[in-house]
């Protein structure tokens, strides 16, 4: 059976580290980075990229429009 797979791209410098994407991701793909961006925010990153299903919840809920989402069947 085909599996749905996704991938996200996080624009680090726009991220404000609010963590709303992290709590909205149903698969636990996103964690906060241990490093800060140019503004001093711990940014979001796809820490478990293989778990992403491309549902776009993170991008839809991100206030700052930081995340781009791709989705495919493999």
């Amino acid at each position, binding site marked *: 059976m085909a599996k749905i*797979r*996704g*991938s*996200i*791209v*996080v*624009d*680090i*410098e*726009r991220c*404000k*580290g*609010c*963590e*709303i994407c992290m*709590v*909205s991701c149903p698969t636990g*793909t996103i964690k906060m*980075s241990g490093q800060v*961006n140019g503004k001093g*925010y711990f*940014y979001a*990153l*796809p820490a478990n*990229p*293989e778990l*992403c299903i*491309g549902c*776009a*919840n*993170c*991008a*839809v*809920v*991100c*206030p*700052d*429009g930081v*995340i*781009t*989402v*791709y*989705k*495919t069947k493999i």
Partner: protein
Amino acid sequence: MTEVTGIKDYIKPENLVYSKTRLMTDNILHYCPGCGHSTAHRILAEIIDEEGLQQDAIGVSPVGCSVFLYNYLDIDWQEAAHGRAPALATAIKRLNPGKVVFTYQGDGDLAAIGTSETIHSCNRGENFLIIFINNGIYGMTGGQMAPTTIPGMKSSTSPYGRDTGQMGYPLKITDIVATLPGTYYVSRQSVHTALNVRRAKRALRKAVQYQSLNRGTCFVEIVSNCPAGWKMTPVEANRWMEENMLPYYPLGDLKVPSAETSVIPDNKE
């Protein structure tokens, strides 16, 4: 741009399911982390883009945290004095009946200093859309109590919580305008979860389409957060909002066009 990516193999143009709309400028939003204003701006921009209304939309930005809204959506704008956006929008729409005209206002702007403009424009049935961001306080000026502050809610001018005996009751202005014959579509939404963002976008899209029919005022409240003003993290603020604000301001449509007058099908996202 500096970016981190998931699995690179899947990143191809044909697999794209979500990216920031081109109608949003590249300016970094000045809002605090997690602020619902940003999310509300984004879904509004997406709708204007998807409906092909960039050339026809005229927004009126308020006084409040969203005063710089005109820096973020690449459409035509006017800036109104505090609370007066509906008066300005009245003039704009009456002079340009073919344009898509909307105001975007906070609760201090719309339900305190601008109460009169809000109620009378809705009562006159002016043919524009009012987008009302209710975060329960005056965000920009330091978190003072607003007419919308819920009972017991702390603010910088009600540090022990709103005491209704002394400070009066919250004003459910959306419920009030829904009773006026001049309003055509009235809805209350929120943008704190992905599901709610999708629902809010559907309601806002309907409101944008309805306002083009020129059959009365459309009014969409978005119950929102103010993590900085509430002194919470964004995730805590959203949880607090869900547990405390939403029971007081329940989500959903308050007024929908009757079957005979509605010509727009219920559309999917």
